[in-house]
């Protein structure tokens, strides 16, 4: 029953302000698709347009071949999970889950059967006769999910469903959600501002900012080859260092200050921007540094260190004064102590090189 959702040149305006300018995206059948971005980026607005609770000011949304712009929410055959669950407080767990079914021409025994079946899927059979106020947050979440999928929707829409749960439960629930989604195979659109959560559950992620999709890709692509500096800094942690890209005899190399030069292979600069030296922004994630004692690379001073078990974080000051963060697998040897001088090199196959505005990634696609 799953559908493909195609969104064409979609526009959302509130009065004079345009929240989403001409957005196009195609969500595949059965895909777990996540809209990720900081608050106010338009991700929830887009989700609610797909649900039908927000008006559409331009463009179209298709479920398969059918334009659904003017179809009422109730007729779109969607299942929706709300941020605060929106569990009906006056109905039992069973009553909540059966609610959507009762509006369809389904016999009572069949409804009961479907409710029991879904209760098993979300693993809350034992609470079926409870009132919502007697359920924990995680249990309410499961009820909300069961209520949304029991009607066999074409599309499952989830609006920050885990943001009201505590950290540990959130991880359990996101695994449960992913598993249930895979089991029932519904095209799912998921909204979150938590990038780790997005990477854990999604087949593909659209990173949004100001109503525009900045990067659309698999979690791995988005983390390893972010399309621009915004995506690089929003997803995971990174250090942005300014430097220059030099081009000699068909070879590229990066100048990162203090005479540190690193040859780099997979660079594609558009012909129009080609110069022998090009100012660039370099995104180096904390784990993409090597700490060396052999006076190779950039000189830096350790400021302080944080031991986190598996990894150790170092905060160091470069000679330029910029502070960068480095992660290393913890060693049995003693930690580097504050004030100690070290030398840093980068892992050229992993780092990303952007134009000086931070809008274009010169680094080649990740080799999958």
């Amino acid at each position, binding site marked *: 029953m799953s559908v493909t959702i195609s969104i064409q040149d979609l526009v959302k305006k509130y009065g004079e302000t345009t929240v989403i300018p001409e957005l196009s995206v195609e969500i595949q059948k059965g895909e777990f698709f996540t809209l990720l971005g900081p608050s106010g980026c338009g991700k929830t607005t887009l989700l609610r347009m797909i649900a039908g609770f927000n008006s559409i000011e331009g463009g179209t949304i298709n479920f398969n071949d059918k334009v659904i712009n003017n179809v*009422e929410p*109730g007729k779109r055959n969607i299942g*929706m999970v709300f941020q*605060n669950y929106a569990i*009906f407080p006056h109905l039992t767990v069973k009553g909540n889950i059966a*609610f*959507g079914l009762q*509006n369809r021409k389904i016999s009572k025994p069949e409804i009961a059967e479907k409710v029991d079946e879904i209760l098993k899927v979300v693993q809350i059979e034992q609470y079926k006769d409870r009132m*919502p106020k007697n359920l924990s947050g995680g249990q309410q979440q499961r009820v909300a999910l069961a*209520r949304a999928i029991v009607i066999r929707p074409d599309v499952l829409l989830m609006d920050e469903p885990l943001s009201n749960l505590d950290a540990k439960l959130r991880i359990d629930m996101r695994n449960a959600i992913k598993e249930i989604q895979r089991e029932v195979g519904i095209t799912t659109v998921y909204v979150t501002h938590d990038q780790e959560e997005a990477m854990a559950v999604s087949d593909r992620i659209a990173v949004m900012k100001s109503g525009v999709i900045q990067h659309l890709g698999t979690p791995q692509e988005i983390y390893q080859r972010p399309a621009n500096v915004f995506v690089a800094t929003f997803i995971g942690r990174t250090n942005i260092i300014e430097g220059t890209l030099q081009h000699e005899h068909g070879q590229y190399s990066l100048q990162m200050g203090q005479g540190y030069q690193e040859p780099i292979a997979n660079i594609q600069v558009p012909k129009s921007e080609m110069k022998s030296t090009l100012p660039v922004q370099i995104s180096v994630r904390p784990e993409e540094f090597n700490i060396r004692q052999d006076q190779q690379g950039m000189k830096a001073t350790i400021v302080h260190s944080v031991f986190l078990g598996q990894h150790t974080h170092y905060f160091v000051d470069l000679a330029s004064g910029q502070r960068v963060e480095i992660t290393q697998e913890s060693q049995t040897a003693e930690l580097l102590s504050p004030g100690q001088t070290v030398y840093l090199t980068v892992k050229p196959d992993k780092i990303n090189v952007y134009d000086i505005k931070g809008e274009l990634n010169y680094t080649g696609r990740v080799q999958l």
Partner: protein
Amino acid sequence: MNRSRKRFDVWTNISLLIFLFYIVFLALPLFTMLIKSFYNGTTGDFSLAYFVKFFSKPYYLNALFNSIKVTVCVTILAAVIATPLAYIMSTVKIKGSSTIRILILISSMSAPFIGAYSWILLLGRNGVITKFVKSVFGITMPDIYGFGGILLVLTLQMVPLIFMYVSGALKSVDQSLMEAAESMGYKGISKMRKVLLPLITPTLMAGGLLVFMRALADFGTPMLIGEGYKTVPVLIFNEFISEVGGDDGFAAAISVIVVIFATAVFLLQKFVSNRKSYTMSALNPIEPKKKSGIGSILAHIVIYLYTLLALLPQLYVIYTSFQKTSGRIFVKGYSLDSYRDAFDSIGGAIQNTFVLAISSLVIIILLAVLIAYVTVRRKNALTNTLDIFTMFPYIVPGSILGIALLITFNHKPLVISGTAIIIIVSFVIRRLPYTIRSSAAILHQINGGIEEAAISLGASQMKTFFKITLPMMLAGVVSGAILSWVTIITELSTSIILYTAKTKTVTVAIYTEVVRGNYGVAAALSTVLTVITVVSLLIFLKLSGQKEISM
């Protein structure tokens, strides 16, 4: 040592003092009334004669039946009218909606009997509308007196109460609940029936109870517009006041029956609503949306028409206050004579009202903050009992409390009947709950840790309360106090029983002028009262920064 000191701190003494106040001025009078109803007034023997008399004569039973009929009809009708109004106001953008909310509030704050008397002026035998319809269309309007009139006046008076309750409840319903229902294919009526109505039912029941109790207790309306249609409060009043054949004992017996009936309804409501309650807090509350076309026009018409209807009696009274009078009838032309007459003959009533109301208010504020504090922060058997005591004014109609106070304090050891004190006591007991409720509500929101911080820094219990807790409670206290104030100055059913020439209040004066047929003077006094009420409410709204009152 440490333990006992904690148990008997200064708050225990305060609780005991307030408890004593309630014992003397509420429990004792009600008990006296109960005793009186079981003893023969002349012989002093135990007897059930009063109850036998009540239940054996159709005349009395009829009044009871009439009361129940009026009360039930008013409650149902008010809920049926108010709920759609509140729903429209909460979901559709209405032009001038905040003004309309204030106007609806104002319409509920006048004394009901003023509405009754105004409707007589409009729809009575010589009413302007009656005469107009007759002369233009030649149709005789149906009679306003009796059941229909009482129903009209009380329903219009009570709709705003339920309106405000339901509006408050709708605000706590999360928009996403509505959207969840929509996403599953429910819309329009089925959405309301299956989701919205069940969610606001507990509130509807709470509002309904308040309306039920008020309608049951209302004395002025059936007295003026009921004519032959007697209800129990009228019966009690007549039995008690009547100069010939009045009988305190019989009035007490009827009062006991009413209080038992009211208590039964109160407990039944609590029993049912406790099983149906759920707490909600809306992350995204339902907001009024701009609608277009016929829906919006209809919504505007319904809201404006209702507001006009609700305000009509008060507006008409204000209008007539500027009309010229000749003797007792209005004549053509306008003048301020009515005002002059009002101030000349009964100007003292205005002064009395202020003195009595302000004295009561001071005591109310003091008691309310202390009661709120001990019932919220010092929960124990004593304060729980106190909490129950403060609910009694809900159940005991004003006229019955008046009678109970009078028969208790018109003989030694404590004689205060006929004094200002007895009226102040009655005002305090009856109007305390508003201020207690608002004070307790705000206290629930203040973190107890703040007081502990003050005490840990060496402040005493009292210093902590007056320097830390009370200032933080102030907004809540003030909003409740203004409600207490407004309901004191429009109070009739107790003061009509307790007043003397020296303690006549404005409402009593209006009532007696209406009964005498001095409509001009009554209108002028009503207008003065309305102005005071409106100004008080506007101050309240300004101070609290709210657009409505939750009761």
